[in-house]
């Protein structure tokens, strides 16, 4: 296991040292020794943000943070929830929070109903992507937020456009899905068997 001695260093130096080691050596497990609680918490959070699982031990006045990276856990975890066998891959791209044109209130009701009924697609539903005004469905206060969370629990991957969230200043209000970029969206559209755009 790769060991990093970051004792005697103040924030943010221990995090930087850990970051540099991860980048250069890409270790599967790492042990970081720090001598203060702030650095310990910062290093632990940094490792977790990089997909490591962490454990903490106290050794005299020092803290030992051990991070283990369950061999690229993120990618594999996702792969496990991907539909298998003959399921189709349907991507639904919501570029609006209203279904159709005409009356806005009716449009919102229809959209809510549409998203709730989507589950009838079963395992064929593969990606749910929100862009432009559609991102407003994925924030707190959205009528379908609980439905979307339930979808996510079943393994459906929900992508929410980061540029759009940022544009509407809603980045910190997003409640569901992964913040994503255009390349992810384009790639998903390419891989999908069918794309339904709203």
């Amino acid at each position, binding site marked *: 296991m790769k060991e990093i001695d970051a004792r005697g260093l*103040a*924030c*943010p130096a221990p*995090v*930087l040292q850990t970051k540099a080691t991860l980048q250069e050596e890409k270790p599967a497990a790492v042990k970081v020794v720090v001598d*203060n*609680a*702030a*650095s310990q*918490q*910062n*290093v*632990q*959070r*940094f490792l977790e*943000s990089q997909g490591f699982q962490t454990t903490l031990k106290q050794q005299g006045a020092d803290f030992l943070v051990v991070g283990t990276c369950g061999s690229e856990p993120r990618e594999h975890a996702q792969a496990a929830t991907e539909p298998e066998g003959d399921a189709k891959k349907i991507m639904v791209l919501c570029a609006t929070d209203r279904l159709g044109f005409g009356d806005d209130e009716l449009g919102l009701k229809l959209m809510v109903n549409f998203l709730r009924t989507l589950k009838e697609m079963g395992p064929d539903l593969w990606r749910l992507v929100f862009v432009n005004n559609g991102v407003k469905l994925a924030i*707190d206060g959205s009528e379908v937020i609980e439905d979307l969370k339930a979808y996510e629990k079943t393994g459906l991957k929900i992508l929410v456009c980061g540029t759009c969230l*940022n544009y509407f200043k809603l*980045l*910190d*209000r997003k409640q569901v899905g992964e913040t994503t970029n255009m390349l992810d969206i384009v790639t998903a559209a390419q891989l999908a068997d069918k794309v339904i755009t709203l």
Partner: protein
Amino acid sequence: MFPTDANVIVGLERADDAGVYKISDDLALIQTVDFFTPIVDDPYSFGQIAAANALSDVYAMGGVPKTAMNLVAFPVKDMEIGILRRIIQGGLDKLTEAGVVLIGGHSIEDRELKYGLSVTGTVHPQRVLTKNGLRANDRLVLTKPLGTGIVNTAIKAGMAPPELVEQVTRLMAALNRTAGEVMARFDVHACTDVTGFGLLGHLAEMVSGSGLGVHIDSRKVPVMVEALTYASMGLIPAGAYRNREFREPMVVFAEAVERSRQDALFDPQTSGGLLISVSGTQAGDLVKALGDAGVGDSAEIGAVLTGPEEKIWVV
């Protein structure tokens, strides 16, 4: 006990933002001093921020700053004197913007650079605003977004883009003058400026001894978006952890408040905004007036209630 006299309106025992001394029935002096080591690389910006920070204590007391004096510690053997000139120019320009005159100062040689100012202002003795004075049904208004400590940590780590460096510098250098002037038109009961103890640390000082409770809606607290991202990566200044540890017994977080947002609420601020406790019926108008005057990040962030006694509930 420290010696005092009958004209001391706010002295040492209160640990407020500045001292206040009554000169006559309609005039009191506000005095404050503040200095620190550089928090940004650019000397001119450092001067501006140091001045904005020193002036802020006078605004937080409801006063108008009038005069200032420089305090300088400079490693004259190791550092080029032009750096000091730029720092002082930054401070001077900020004072000019505030309508304050520089009337003197003092410098010494030191191994580490330090700059700050002592500021004197005036206030009507009956209109002094302190940290005490919260009333039930008040609303709390904050005039600058949080996150400067976390973002400065990311800058130290070399992880912040130049636009963000510029943005946070501008934020720290922004005077609380307009916020103070607008606030004077409303029924304000208590005020402080948010600095090293973080929002919740300074709020805890206001709540202590009040017998009242404070509810904060964390989603309404303005926070720099980037600060939340950096916090989740562990780029949090040690001071934020200390602030949390110190005030944890007074603060109750709802489960839904994410860890990074909690960190932002404890993040030590440099030259932060004013935290204003205003009569509940006027909060909306105050926020609107602040926005109209250009203090656009202002937001109503919570309320003062009769309980739970001396606790801060964050939802």
